[in-house]
Every structure is written in C-alpha cells, then in structure tokens.
C-alpha cells in the first residue's frame, strides 16, 4: 500500500497533467455541442465589457464606412417604403397568415469577432435586457451573419456563419432548389452549399438566398453568389457547390437581429412530429 502511495506521489505531476487535460477537453466538447449550454464565454459581463472597451477604440476608425453603409441602406429602404404606402382611397383588406409579418427586428453592435478559427463566434452588445433570445438570426445589409447562441444581461454570443457547426437552410434563387449552407473551415470568404442533387443545373454567378424553411431567417436574405460547381467527389449523387459570401466578415460593425415570433410554435410542431430542426 505504501509503495502504491509512493508511486502515485512520484507521478503526481503526470496525474495532475492528465486531470487538467481532461478538464480542458471536457470544456471543448461541452462548448462545441450546438445545443449544449455554455457556461463560460464572452457573454460574461466582465469579459464583455472589456471587449466592448476594445471595440470602442477600434471601431472609431471605421465609423465613416459604417455611416456610408447605413445611409445607403436608409435610401434603399425609403425607396421601398414609398412604393408600399397605402393610398388613402384603397379598401382595407384583412391579411391572412401567408402575408402576415412574423418577424421582429433589432439592431446591435458587434464588439468582438473572429474569423481565423474553425469555430468562430461574434459577441454583440445587446442582451436579454433588450429582448435578445438564443436562436435569433443575425444579418446585416450585405447578407446573413449567424445565429445567437447564448445571452447574458447586456451581451450575447452568436455563431458566425464561419462556424463549422452551423447549418443554414438556403436555396438557389433562379431555380428554387434548396440545400444547406455550411462552412468547411478553410476560406473565410467562401461557404459550401450541400445536398444539392446532381441533376440540378447550377451555374457560376447564381444568387443563393435563405430558403425561409427554417424558423430562424425569413425567405430571401442574401447569402452569396455561386463561384464554383463540381460533382461531389465523395458522393457522386450530389454537387459540391462553393458560394462566395456577400457579407464581409472582416468588417462587421453593426448587425440586425431577427426573431421569428412564431418560432415556439414551429419548433414544437417539429418536435411533435420528430423532425430534426435545421437552423
């Protein structure tokens, strides 16, 4: 017995090493399971406020760009609004569920962002206090950005599209063929469109948008343009399509968060019928 104890004492450094490594690997696994609760991340108040201080300084230098983008978008929205305004003499019509607006929008500032890892996240300066909930979609005027993962009082953390564990339901605009968009972890300006069968005619330059089949994004948000179409080498029944992202992830300052007000209903319907819900 004594010798066992002596032996254990002699290898105590190694035992501690094994224990600490185990702890670290457990943290990696727990954090990366898409549905798992994350205990430690930058939606933590202390970390969030430090990152915000840093963003305050860095983003000062890109204010001009941010302003131009906002003005452009305002102009476009004003123009659309003019066309939508109801003429005073038109008859009021009740709208049914196909036309009803199910989405609520909020704006938020990006205080931290990464694009060099294979699991990238954004930290946003808006949290539960402002009505942000996990599962909300994130986009900006250029295209989609990601989906909210977890929320604290003032901050929230979102999966970036540049995160290999995020799948987004998408379709090719011209042919209405749908598939899933996923990043392969290699190039920060390109993503893959998966599960498009081989008989589909997809060509370079086609626009890819969100399909609206999932409960996170509405239909028609821009994702990007097809830059390469090949037959999938691993499974020749499918095409492997590369999309050039329309969003410039290296210059994210402000984003919009979108909430589907009927998310709960759709989600519980999916659960009821045992369908996996793809985000």
């Amino acid at each position, binding site marked *: 017995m004594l010798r066992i104890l002596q032996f254990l004492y002699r290898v105590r450094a190694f035992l501690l090493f094994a224990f600490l490594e185990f702890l*670290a690997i457990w943290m990696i696994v727990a954090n990366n399971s898409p549905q798992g609760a994350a205990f430690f991340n930058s939606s933590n108040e202390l970390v969030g406020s430090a990152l915000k201080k840093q963003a305050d300084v860095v983003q000062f230098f890109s204010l001009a760009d941010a302003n131009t983008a906002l003005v452009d978008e305002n102009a476009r929205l004003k123009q659309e609004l003019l066309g939508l305004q109801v003429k005073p003499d038109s008859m009021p019509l009740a709208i049914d569920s196909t036309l009803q607006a199910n989405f609520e929008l909020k704006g938020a500032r990006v205080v931290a962002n990464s694009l060099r890892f294979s699991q990238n996240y954004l930290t946003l300066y808006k949290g539960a206090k402002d009505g942000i909930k996990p599962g909300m979609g994130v986009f900006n005027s250029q295209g989609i950005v990601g989906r909210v993962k977890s929320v604290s009082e003032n901050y929230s953390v979102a999966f970036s599209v540049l995160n290999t564990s995020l799948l987004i339901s998408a379709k090719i605009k011209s042919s209405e063929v749908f598939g899933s968009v996923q990043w392969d972890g290699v190039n920060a300006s390109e993503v893959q469109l998966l599960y498009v069968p081989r008989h589909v005619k997809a060509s370079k330059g086609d626009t890819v948008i969100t399909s609206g089949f999932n409960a996170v994004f509405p239909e028609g948000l821009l994702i990007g343009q097809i830059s390469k179409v090949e037959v999938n080498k691993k499974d020749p029944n499918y095409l492997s399509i590369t999309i050039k992202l329309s969003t410039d992830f290296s210059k994210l300052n402000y984003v919009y968060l979108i909430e589907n007000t009927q998310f709960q209903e759709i989600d519980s319907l999916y659960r009821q019928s045992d369908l996996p819900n793809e985000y």
Partner: protein
Amino acid sequence: MNIRNLFSYSFVILILGLVQILFLKNLALFGHAFGFLYLLGLLILPNTLRTIPLMLLAFVLGFILDVFFETIGMHTAAATLFAFLKPFWLKTASPTGGFDEAEEPSLLQIGLGRYVSYAFPLLFVYSLAFFIADQWGTGGFLGVLSKSFFSAVFTLLLTILVQVLFFRRKRGIS
C-alpha cells in the same frame, strides 16, 4: 524565487496577457501564422518553478485567454501540455551539466542558438495541440501542420523581438 522576482514575473505575464488579448486577438499573418506571445511569460520562468505550479499557472492563463477568444478549452489544453513538457525539455536541451538552477532561460541569458532550440519545439507542440483541437473533424492534417509550423515561427520571432527590445541584460527583466 524571491518576492522581488515574483512581482516582476507577474508583471511581465500580466502585460503579455493584455497585449495578447487586445492586439494579437485577430492578427494572423496570411491567415496562417498566429502569434501566441503570452507564452513568453511561461518560457522565461526559471527551472526552480516546478512542474505542478507551472501547470496550474498555464491552465489558468490559457483559460482566461479562452474566455476572451471564444475558444473554450483549446488554449487551456495546449498551455497545460506546454507547461508539462517545459521542465523536461529544458533539462534535455540544456548543455552538459545543465543550466544554472537559478538562471532564467531567456534569450539574453542563454544566447540565441540555445534559446531557439529550447523555445521552438515547445512553441510548435503548443501550436500543434491548439490547431488539432481547433480543426478537429474538419480540414486536413497538412493544413494543421503548416498552420502550427508558421505560428511557431511567428511566435518565436515575436518573443525574440520583445526580449531584445524590452528586457535588460543584467536582471533579465526590467
């Protein structure tokens, strides 16, 4: 290690940690080479600091970094491995008769050639562990290998630069 040294080492580690978090967070040369400058704080700790406290220190440092970088567990795992290997490697790579116990293995104390042969393998192992954890299940091993190699080279250059610019010869640390 006396109190005075303890303070100066803590100061160096704090500054390097801040630089890492505030400036090196999104920096990657050619999207490939990352700078893990904060490892310099662990590299220059003298061999009188034993494996166990070193490992605990590395674990905590890696964890703090992970919280800021949204890479939970990855820096922690790599830094713990780094700290576990450091004393062994320092013993193996030292000249016959070993380093002076109290001597700190910094560039100005042990010279460029010995510093590179001491620091580079450790930095490479760290980068390798980090990128394997990062790219688990995605990407090829070749990508991981080249990323690790260039990150180790870049980090090594950064550590040399910092030591040449900011460290004093006499006491090691200003």
